[in-house]
């Protein structure tokens, strides 16, 4: 759904450069759901592929080998495994070179395509198939989620934002604002994954909304490193409301409540908002 909104905001003159993710299976020979162009590269190097396509279009147009009417926007589309882990080097390179491209990261907080294993995007306390809660390791994932927003922000790209499928207008507005800049324009979308999260598909939008209302998923943007929050709940709902409905966090509640972990998760969220002076 986010992808559909993103593509709507970007228009038809787009080439998507994809890294190994669930989306790779969208274009399976001989069928493609896209009306725009597409190039599957590899898990680690979609931003490098974008560099090659962008540079080639520029140089071909410059040399008069291609009409400028034929120009395309270059859009990288990857999952969190590629964005948070394996593709960091090529992303950092593209940001450093100020490549004129869009990057949309679909963050379902684990390696979803391979059956939901822990990734750098997996939050504290999440059950994944490689962090099964057990007697010795009762909380599931013991590491907090990497802050990809801050990693990307440290490169000072012209535009960087988080988005959510539950806030389509926020999303469209952000794409509009991003479009005014040349250089890297980056988006991280929280992407509920029903089989991995242990939730009913019909609740995906509700969950994405709850993530924002509880403060777990901060909707924000950074223009040349200046951060602004675009949706701030008037009163934050307790994080538990978001966690409780999801199979991947069920072990934090049953058979016994893991108070310390629940408190830590809530505390990390509060700390974030206090840091930004949006929670007193």
């Amino acid at each position, binding site marked *: 759904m986010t992808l559909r909104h993103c593509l709507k905001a970007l228009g*038809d*003159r787009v*080439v998507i*450069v994809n890294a190994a993710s669930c989306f*790779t*299976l969208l*274009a*399976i*020979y001989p069928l*493609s759901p*896209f*009306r*725009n*162009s*597409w*190039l*599957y*590269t*590899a898990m*680690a*190097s979609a*931003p*490098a*592929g*974008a*560099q*090659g*396509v962008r*540079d*080639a*279009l*520029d*140089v*071909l147009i410059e*040399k008069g*080998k*291609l009409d400028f*009417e*034929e*120009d*395309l926007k270059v859009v990288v589309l990857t999952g969190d495994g590629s964005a948070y882990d394996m593709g960091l*080097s*090529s992303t*950092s*390179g593209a940001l*450093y*070179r100020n490549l004129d491209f869009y990057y949309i990261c679909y963050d379902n907080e684990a390696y979803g395509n391979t059956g939901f294993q822990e990734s750098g995007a997996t939050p504290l306390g999440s059950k994944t198939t490689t962090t099964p809660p057990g007697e010795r390791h009762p909380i599931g994932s013991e590491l907090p989620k990497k802050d990809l927003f801050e990693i990307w922000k440290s490169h000072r790209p012209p535009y960087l934002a988080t988005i959510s499928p539950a806030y389509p207008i926020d999303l469209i507005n952000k794409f509009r604002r991003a479009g005014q800049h040349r250089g890297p324009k980056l988006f991280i979308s929280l992407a509920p994954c029903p089989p991995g999260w242990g939730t009913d598909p019909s609740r995906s939008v509700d969950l994405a909304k709850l993530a924002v209302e509880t403060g777990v998923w901060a909707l924000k943007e950074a223009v040349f490193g200046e951060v602004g929050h675009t949706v701030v709940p008037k009163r934050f709902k307790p994080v538990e409301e978001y966690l409780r409905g999801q199979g991947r966090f069920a072990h934090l509640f049953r058979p016994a409540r893991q108070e310390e972990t629940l408190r830590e998760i809530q505390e990390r969220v509060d700390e974030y908002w206090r840091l930004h002076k949006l929670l007193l």
Partner: protein
Amino acid sequence: MKREMLTGNAAAAWGVRLVEVDYVPVYPITPQTEIIETLAGWISDGMMDTRFVTMDSEHSMITAAGAASATGARAFTATSSQGLLYGFEMIYTVAGWRVPLVMVNVSRGLSSPITLEPDHNDILAIRDSGFLQIHCETCQEVLDSIILAYRLAEDERVLLPVMVNMDGFYLSFTREPVEIPNLEEVREFLPPYRPKHAFFMASQPMAQGVAVLGGPAYSYFKYQMHLASLKALEVYGEICAEFEREFRRGYGPVEGYMLEDAEYALVMAGSFSTLGKKAVKRARDKGIRAGLLKLRLLRPFPEADLRKALEGKKAVAVLDQNISVGKGGILYSEVASCLCNSKKRPVLLSFIGGLGGKNISPHEFEFLFEKMIEAFEEGTSSGTHLLYTEKEWEEMSLLKRTAENEGKA
């Protein structure tokens, strides 16, 4: 046309300059770096109208080069050894895209132990990827092969990437007299790249590199790459004939040296062939009817040429500058497979030499010819023999003693 003293790396850069590439993404690695430094200088001085970008790794570099090629630009990049292995995944990927990227690999032994001097395990690691492979012996060959490579890769019957290989240090840093063709002549030989099968433009959207599910589709695409590679043998013959008419230098898929009337043939590839040719000459002086076959094309493998050249010889020794650990020489297996059904099959011998740039002395070649004669008389041969001298063993012993490793076992 002008004549200059050029290193192998400078000759490669000249080849790239003459084909007027649009795009060069790079990443430094010894001993290839001089190629990209030379290009960077020319581009900075405005002598080449080319976009140049330093990437964050070889994996990214090959992705960017392949993606530019898939967009419709003429792209070039170069690497060596560990760099080729770091970008290995993309070698297969780019070949599967069916785009005519040309790369240079400057061969260097693979880690570990990490080293600098050449052998062919790096380039042979990508043997099965779909990249065509041209192996060079001289600096002139390097320059000419790059021009040939683009013509071959961009031919509509082929459309596979090409790797031009030269040996690190021995060729990359050795100056030889090289004829540099005129730009106009090269333009005449190599028309601009105008892809019909793979490009990106707004008016004709296209999905490239898409997934397939199921064996029949996968088999189809892979086998078509194989057929296109075989087709490249035929195309290579045509374009080499044309190249020879235009530039008066000819390159077959294999090159024979004193081979026609030879009874004992040595098979080699790369710059060490020059040592082999000298050894053949010396053997002839001693009355041994020796000859040498140099493999220039390794993919596609010129099976018919090889069979024609080697059938009926008394013995053939393949001198591999590589080692398939647990099997032996890689080219030995390849040569053997194309002679095994021949009725006039010579006795075949397998030698390994020049690993990590180790010199092959005249005495080692003499030993090799003696073994060939012996094998012919006995009618058989077995095993792989590493060319290694007693002196080298003694020196190695000294090193082991210094490392305090000797006498431990």
